[in-house]
């Protein structure tokens, strides 16, 4: 199982947390496709709290956190 946490505007129509069954050879590009999130809407893509590229292969039990462009200070 992969837990996908969505934030800010990415929650609209998708909810806060989406759980996906783990598949082998599954990466961020496919995950975003499954969730119908255009890559250009993603500014911060974390796997287990660390920034990763969309190409990185996901492991079972991974937590993915996805944010649109947001900031502050």
């Amino acid at each position, binding site marked *: 199982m992969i837990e996908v*946490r969505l*934030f*800010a*505007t990415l*929650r609209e129509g998708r909810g*806060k947390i989406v759980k996906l069954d783990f598949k082998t050879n599954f990466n961020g590009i496919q995950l975003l496709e499954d969730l119908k999130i255009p890559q250009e809407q993603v*500014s*911060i893509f*974390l796997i*287990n*709290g*660390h*920034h990763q590229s969309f190409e990185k292969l996901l492991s079972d039990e991974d937590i993915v*956190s996805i*944010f*649109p*462009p*947001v*900031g*502050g*200070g």
Partner: protein
Amino acid sequence: METTSYNGKLLRINLTNSQITSESLNLDLAKKFIGARGLGTKILMDEINPTIDPLSDDNKLIIMTGALTGAAVPTGGRYVVVTKSPLTGMIACSNSGGEWGAKLKYAGFDGIIFEGKAQSPVYLSICDEKVELKPAEALWGKTSSETEEILKAEYEKSSVLNIGPGGENKSLMAAIMNDADRAAGRSGVGAVMGSKNLKAIVVQASRNNIPVTDSEAMRKEMLIAMKKIKEDGVTGTGLPTYGTAVLVNIINETGSFPTDNWQGSYDENAEIISGETLAEKYLKGTYHCHRCPIGCGRVVEREGKNIGGPEYETLWAYGGNCGVHDIPTINEANFWCNELGIDSISVPCTIASAMELYQKGYISEEECDGVPLTFGSKEAVVEWTKRIGLSQGKLGALMAKGSQRLCDAYGHPEFSMSVKKQELPAYDARGIQGIGLNYATSNRGGCHVRGYMISPEILAHPELLDRTKTEDKATWTKIFQDLTAVIDSMGMCLFTSFALGADDYANFLNAGTGTTHTVDSLLEAGERIYNLERIFNKKAGMKAEDDSLPKRLTEDSIVDGPSQGQKNHLNIMLPEYYAARGWVNAFPTEETLIRLGLEENDRS
């Protein structure tokens, strides 16, 4: 005379003898140090001995607008307060938005230098060129909003800057407030104003614009900048929709959200106090400062009235750091910070350190006087905020001096999460290396907005750096600090830098003031300001070891969350940073000072 966006005029108010004088601004000096932060620091350096007691008559309170404050530039309405800080004993430079800064510029002045001390409370009224000191006994003791309401009833269409009881009581964490909820919040600048018996400054202005050197170039750059700000995801959508509060979830997801006075770094309940929850359940509107197209200010409701809502820092400081997962309580505590005129970062962080002292048995239940300092207590955060603002009771008065003095008094300085005695903001520097370097080297003590390394290390802006690595952090931190010094000196909001680059700022400044800055010369001007602040600190008694982090960040690993096991490696980054700056043992070399044209300032 050359047309520029400077008025070319400063007000000097001697509070001891009530003398008011208007003097010419040295335009060459203004251009060299840009304005606001840079120019204010230069004037302070020239006029006070940095070793003086910050709360004595000898300190000066300089309130300065930026080169482009009041001009037709996005967010061009800010002012800064420069003085010697009673909290850090070093340079204080706090800036604020709202309308007040632009109003002062429209009234005809670039800044005000306050010196001496009034015998009894006074306020200053500025109605264009007519400037008067007036008795303020009737205002003394009033909260910030009460003071503003009384003065606005007398002065139509005015803007009011004031201190609350926090400044009157000389809390070392006292802020200067303006336009309801805007604050020059950090480093205890409100205590300096209180020490001078100065309650408020009310400004009326007939003008609503200022001339610039090249209005056509300014108009062109304005269109370019507005387009960039609207199209950028952060300034065009993220900040308007969620404010800075959106950071709660982001920083927490990276395991860099300090909890319980930095004992933990991941908050299982962050969602409850997040920007998303704030927007969904509590948001009543947004607030835009002068000429701001972003509108990051939050408006929430309290007892049927709209009030200013909390920033990210405040949500974290009360929410994560004191363990209170309840937005209405945080709104209430934030309300009292604003009413009493105290810093909504340092105050809750001091409460958090007191909570750790209480948790570990160093502060007794009896000393808590009916309100135990228990992590997570809603009652405690509101009540102790009030006690700090009013310097109430023995412990309240001690806590009003900030976390370092509190923890020193109990023999546990290590529980003060501060740099140079100023409380750290909301990002755990163990999992984010560069922000730790910025904290350690910030001239005004613990601060995120001297060089916001969160931008590249977390927000991937303008590009992503590995937050866990130390490589390249020295040069990035230096550039961020130098560019920030420029933006602060221009009178624009730092948030524009999510969308604008150094070339945009150079174009704005050149159009406004007739300078011929390139990106390189602009960054060098920022470097000059950063070095000038550092010389002030050196003369004020700063030591090399003051460029440090609390031991908890360099010796104790994070115990929970995604950044578990990490520490800050300041010892690796600091020598690289000094090399990049041309400093040895924390201070500029003679060669660096000559390169920046500052050699005269280093002499005693």
